[in-house]
């Protein structure tokens, strides 16, 4: 096989440099900084730092509050990921069957994708407003006195709903294109082999969507863990106090509100390791069982 190449080895490096620079400045350098500062106790007013070794980490493992946030994060991630994927798949399957008005349907669903997380959170604030939010009114009708930002469960509920709502369109687009990339003749062959539409879906369509699903699973877990920051921040109304939050949000709260930069750094290092482990685990274990056409 003939390979195209550069005549000098400096040109490719030069071309890669802007990208490498951006990664270095905005990823490696802060990551390195987080690792070093996690071993120090920072003066809240910036007058120096004391080396404390692993104390920031040991403190976290014994912290009841940290454990509570970690538990909520796991639950939040599982629920958001599951519902965003399940709803998107349902919509995609329905959209795939629609012949007339399919474009309108898709466009309407896609719009939400353009909404930024803080804006989504703000829309959530309006919808779940304690006194006049339409969704709160609806819940009140069923006897549920919904108090966003006051009741822990209610706030968590709103966070999950808004996060799911924000993520469904992305998943929908991927699932829909995944569905449409299944060869028509394969579906037709299944049509001759099996009269039950439900069985055809689980036997043929779903396994063939698995590569798309796996990719989305990873991106959705990442989304739930990190990108929901804006939603959580808005719905907490800047008063995290007794409200639910995820680990990422706690990094921010402890570091920039509590001025505990060392502890906050230790938390982000833990998160970094967690994500790394999760990704490696997923790719190693699950990918092997998935058929790629």
């Amino acid at each position: 096989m003939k390979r195209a190449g550069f005549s000098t080895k400096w040109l490719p490096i030069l071309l890669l440099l802007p990208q490498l620079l951006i990664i270095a400045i905005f990823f490696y350098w802060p990551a390195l900084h987080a690792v070093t500062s996690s071993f120090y106790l920072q003066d809240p007013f910036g007058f120096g730092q004391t080396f404390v070794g692993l104390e920031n980490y040991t403190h976290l493992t014994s912290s009841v509050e940290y454990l509570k946030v970690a538990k909520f994060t796991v639950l939040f991630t599982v629920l958001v990921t599951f519902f965003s994927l399940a709803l998107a798949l349902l919509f995609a399957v329905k959209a795939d069957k629609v012949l007339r008005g399919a474009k309108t349907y898709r466009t309407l669903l896609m719009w939400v994708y353009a909404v930024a997380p803080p804006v989504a959170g703000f829309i959530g604030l309006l919808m779940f407003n304690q006194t006049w939010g339409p969704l709160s009114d609806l819940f009140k009708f069923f006897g549920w006195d919904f108090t966003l930002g006051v009741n822990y469960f209610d706030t968590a509920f709103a966070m999950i709903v808004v996060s799911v709502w924000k993520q469904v369109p992305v998943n929908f687009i991927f699932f829909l294109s995944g569905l449409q990339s299944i060869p028509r003749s394969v579906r037709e062959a299944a049509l001759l082999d099996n009269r039950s539409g439900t069985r055809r879906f689980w036997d043929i369509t779903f396994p063939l969507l698995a590569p798309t699903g796996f990719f989305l699973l990873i991106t959705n877990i990442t989304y739930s863990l990190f990108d929901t920051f804006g939603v959580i921040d808005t719905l907490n109304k800047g008063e995290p106090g007794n409200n639910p939050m995820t680990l990422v949000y706690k990094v921010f709260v402890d570091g920039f509100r509590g001025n505990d930069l060392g502890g906050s750094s230790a938390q982000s290092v833990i998160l970094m390791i967690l994500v790394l482990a999760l990704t490696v685990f997923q790719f190693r274990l699950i990918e092997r069982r998935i058929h790629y056409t």
Partner: protein
Amino acid sequence: MAQVSLDSVRKIYPNGAEAVTPSSFHIEDGEFVVLVGPSGCGKSTLLRMIAGLEDITEGTLSIGERIVNDVDPADRDIAMVFQNYALYPHMSVRKNIAYGLKNRKTPKDVIDAKVAEAAAMLNLNDYLDRKPSQLSGGQRQRVAMGRAIVRDPALFLFDEPLSNLDAKLRNQMRIEIKALQRRLGVTSIYVTHDQVEAMTMADRIIVLNGGRIEQIGTPSEIYHNPASTFVASFMGAPPMNLVAGELSEGILSFAGLDVPMTVDHRGPVTLGLRPEDLFIDAKGPIAMEVDLVEELGAHRLLHGRVEGQQLTVHLAKEIAAKTGPLRLSCDPSHLCLFHPDTGKRMDVRHKATPQARSNTTVESKA
């Protein structure tokens, strides 16, 4: 096994396009029928309507004794082999073949026995646990066949099953499919755009053009007695020569050729001559200017002009040929005449020959 009847079956798409004009034909039990025509002629649409993958706009379709217009594809007792095999990529060969049976609540030991039988028949024993992506094109085609066979359907449908294979494999699979169909005796409908497949495999050929049936007949009927200029030019490689001739006072004249005909029709006609019915004759009436000699090993093809009209001549390999002027003669009993405007065949014959050629001569030509 079953008979298949189409009664004025018609297909109009929602955008108003008429893909298949009302078409009727009857297929006998165990018959191998080939639908052939150029792309867009409606042959696939017709097959897909029989399979139940397309709705029938008008008319009735029956398989066996049953009208199946509104019957689910899975309940029509048919099996279909698709052009791109349509195997389930995530299932092993064994599961691919067994899937249709599993859904029909066949007992497991029966499924195993049938899969084993089909695998033996198709030489797939060593590949049962492989995924389709690990198989060659021919093997995939066999798996698709296996999937159809195990179901013991009343009707096999083939949608251009060989067009994704290379030429050598295509010839081999053509023979395999035909032999398998003979052995199983299952009524089969086979769609192709390849006239060689149609000629070699069919008991009967249905030639389609523009959503309309041009002709239904055995391969030799289609070849020797084409119903229209379309069929004449579509079937056969090289196709029948179609040249403009003149008919007057019962005499057909083309170039130097004068042939007495049975009917006294006057005016221009289209004359059809198979390339193999022309032969070199130093005293022949037709003067041809040969432009090109195509060497094909088993025979040669001469391409040239007669009075400005294109003509192709088929020569046996023993006969030498070169470009330049040449005199030809032809066997007048093999002439076909077509109406110059409609292209339909005219029922006129060479006066010296009997009314219709006997079957034996037809067979020997094929």
